[in-house]
């Protein structure tokens, strides 16, 4: 089975980022494919590489990056949600005339079309949010 996961809430808020991660890992362990994780609304905050949680706490962004590298998962951050919240990659930084970028490795910035395309090419969409 092919899955697309949607994450609507930022990390370290309630449990969304953790539930989505645990579900994604369990699906992969079960032998399923996760085509894409789409980060929407405050969920885009999962994708900042500048987050520096205490060493004994989970690093949500790093954890996603590692999973994406290991299993070839497309991590997509919604562009409009990201701009509002200051989540930028290098090209967005240049385009918007900002002095820094913070998108974590393995993530990319794109639009809602990527969510729709994911739904078209997968068997299940599972949404996590607040």
């Amino acid at each position: 089975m092919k899955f697309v996961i949607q994450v609507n809430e930022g990390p370290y808020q309630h449990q969304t980022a953790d539930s989505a991660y645990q579900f994604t890992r369990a699906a992969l362990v079960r032998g399923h494919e996760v085509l894409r994780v789409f980060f929407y609304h405050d969920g885009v905050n999962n994708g900042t590489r500048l987050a520096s949680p205490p060493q004994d706490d989970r690093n949500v962004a790093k954890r996603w990056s590692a999973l994406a590298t290991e299993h070839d998962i497309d991590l997509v951050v919604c562009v409009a949600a990201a701009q509002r919240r200051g989540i930028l990659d290098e090209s967005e930084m240049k385009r918007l005339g900002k002095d820094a970028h913070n998108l974590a490795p393995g993530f990319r910035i794109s639009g809602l079309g990527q969510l729709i395309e994911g739904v078209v090419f997968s068997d299940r969409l599972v949404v996590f949010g607040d």
Partner: protein
Amino acid sequence: MSILHTVNKSPFEKNNLESCLRYAKLGSAVLLIEDGIYAALKDTRFEKEVATAMKDVSFYCLEPDLKARGFSAAKIIDGIKMVDYAGFVDLTIKYDKVQAWL
């Protein structure tokens, strides 16, 4: 078409379980995750509503979230089935669609 409904909020806090149960049809299922697990506990004012809904709808509870909140399976309304994350994945496949009540 069968639907797996996920509910992640306590019924003491939000009304998304109630909303979900208004729409859940015969043969569908409700999976209680995160703070949603509070609806699975015995001896609360929601027990009757859950028990009534269970005549038509299967109820599941995500055990890691139950345990994270200090409860064991013994505290759960009879007939609610426990699943782990692998079981959660299996449920999303068993049912045709997944609807999150956020």
